[in-house]
């Protein structure tokens, strides 16, 4: 080997090693690596059945089992544009580099997945590969669904194929270069898709394993609640530490006592997941509201408890921008407490006070109480602004309760003023939103 050749070979080797280390560092741990116990293949696990449907559906037909799993995986919310037929696609995901549209997953042969074989469907859900061989963008959370068993994926397929075929073609994506290069997803997928099925952990309880399967493979909590790394994949070093997704803040759901779920009681968590509200913690709105309405509220009670058991085990990661404790109840009189922002106060008096009260404890319903919620205690006021813009509706066994959308009634400036007033009065630190911030938040939500 000549001297030049040796230098060239050396550079290539160094480059490959550097890329390898880079990939390893960026990729970080997998979603279940924190547990650290002994993993066994599903077939070798005897202590319980972490996959599939709950006991009451064990004897149900394939379609019914698939329906439960499709709801647990929350396919519908992303694959349905508001006002259109279920699962017919077309929901817009607005990203910094363009817009992606969800696809039609009804069994229509031309515009849906009617021609998908079992293998095609498994390829899409577990490997991120479309029937024509093209790669899916990871807005489709196949890096989570990859942990589903083939049996469960095909049950979902059977359910989807039992639905009416809807002819609906989603608009073309409008991604800018280089993000419009689908082939690049081959590399992304090779680095970031673990492409492995769920493996139970024998050091943990059967309940924990069921919760891990539900939370990671199906409910894909991390897709919103785990921050992303340089490659836009989940950074599990900060697993469940919270992130901004689709313009809403998905709060910290790690076991951190101050800013995560560490101080929530089991009953709080069960209530929040199954009805979208827990006393003193507010009500689920935005994307989490949809997750409760279409997914968690349909879970069997034992499955909710399993998710709670699993969440408890996720290591604490603090959110340094959130206060250590949420603010107490504000004064009952409008005179006391924060009055600095006169415009925000005027708007609050006219549009908000009748339901939320001046103290933050709602005279209408505990579901409308602001005191204690992270939304008003987040100094960025992200979710306060979003709820004001788009409103919210909670369905409970006792009936629905809703807040109207003010996005078309108030200017960006007014929404910023009221959000700044609300966070100052009911939270620990007032936000400093500007009209420009609100305009940006409006632009980020999926529709």
């Amino acid at each position: 080997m000549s001297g030049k050749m040796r230098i060239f070979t050396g550079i290539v080797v160094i480059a490959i090693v550097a890329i390898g280390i880079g990939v390893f560092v960026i990729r970080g741990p997998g979603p279940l690596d924190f547990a650290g116990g002994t993993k066994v293949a599903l077939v070798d696990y005897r202590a319980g059945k972490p996959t599939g449907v709950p006991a009451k559906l064990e004897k149900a037909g394939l379609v019914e089992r698939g329906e439960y799993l499709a709801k647990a995986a929350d396919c519908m919310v992303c694959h349905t544009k508001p006002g259109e037929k279920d699962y017919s696609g077309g929901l817009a995901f607005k990203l910094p580099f363009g817009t992606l549209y969800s696809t039609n997953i009804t069994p229509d042969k031309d515009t849906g997945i009617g021609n998908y074989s079992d293998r095609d469907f498994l390829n899409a859900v577990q490997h991120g590969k479309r029937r024509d061989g093209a790669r899916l963008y990871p807005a489709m959370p196949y890096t989570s669904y990859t942990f589903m068993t083939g049996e469960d994926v095909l049950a979902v397929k059977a359910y989807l194929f039992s639905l009416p075929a809807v002819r609906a073609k989603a608009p073309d994506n409008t991604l800018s270069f280089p993000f419009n290069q689908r082939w690049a997803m081959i590399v992304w997928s090779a680095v970031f898709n673990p492409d492995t099925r769920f493996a139970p952990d024998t050091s943990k309880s059967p309940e924990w394993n069921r919760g891990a399967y539900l939370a990671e493979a199906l409910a894909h909590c991390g897709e919103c609640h785990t921050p992303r790394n340089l490659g836009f994949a989940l950074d599990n070093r900060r697993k469940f530490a919270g992130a901004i997704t689709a313009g809403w803040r998905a709060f910290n759901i790690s076991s951190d006592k101050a800013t995560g779920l560490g101080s929530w009681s089991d009953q709080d968590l069960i209530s929040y997941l199954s009805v979208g509200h827990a006393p003193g913690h507010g009500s689920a709105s935005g994307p989490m509201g949809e997750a409760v309405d279409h997914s968690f509220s349909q879970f069997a009670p034992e499955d909710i408890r399993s998710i709670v058991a699993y969440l408890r085990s996720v290591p604490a990661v603090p959110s340094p921008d959130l206060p250590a404790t949420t603010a107490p109840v504000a004064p009952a009189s409008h005179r006391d407490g924060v009055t600095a922002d006169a415009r925000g106060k005027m708007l609050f008096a006219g549009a908000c006070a009748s339901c939320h009260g001046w103290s933050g404890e709602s005279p209408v319903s505990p579901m409308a109480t602001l005191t204690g919620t992270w939304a008003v205690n987040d100094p960025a006021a992200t979710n306060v602004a979003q709820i004001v813009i788009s409103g919210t509706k909670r369905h409970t066994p006792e009936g629905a309760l809703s807040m109207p959308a003010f996005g078309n009634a108030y200017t960006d400036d007014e929404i910023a003023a009221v959000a700044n007033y609300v966070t100052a009065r009911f939270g620990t630190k007032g936000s400093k939103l500007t009209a420009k911030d609100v305009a940006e938040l409006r632009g980020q939500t999926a529709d």
Partner: protein
Amino acid sequence: MHMATTLTINGETKSFDAPPDMPLLWVLRDILGMTGTKFGCGIAQCGACTVHVDGKAVRSCVLPVSAVSNRTVTTIEHVGSTPAGAKVQKAWLEAEVIQCGYCQSGQIMAAAALLAATPHPDDSDIDAAMAGNICRCGTYVRIREAIKQAANGRQS
């Protein structure tokens, strides 16, 4: 799904069948025939439907009836028998507040709740309590004056 519900309204116990998520306003107007409380916007933004729940002004159009089962409801039909409500109604007549009248049961309920909690309100108290009650005729100046009359017991 309907369910038997019992409510204390205007000091009387009323029993009826209603879906638990039916807004209190619908129960009042359509089931109990108490049409003094008005439907305005249906989204808690105009105040026409204001009633008292445990003495506090609440928009009945967004309040599911299931949420008031153990609470005391007072409507415009009965507010005149509360001390603050009687003062407000008297002042309202003296100041000739009302123009078309559609919003006025809500205005009176909001004003009575204000005076019960704050017997001598100043302008900022009136703003804070009444800003959510809209009057398309623009009787706001007379509403403010009547609240002050009711509070101070003086004639204009």
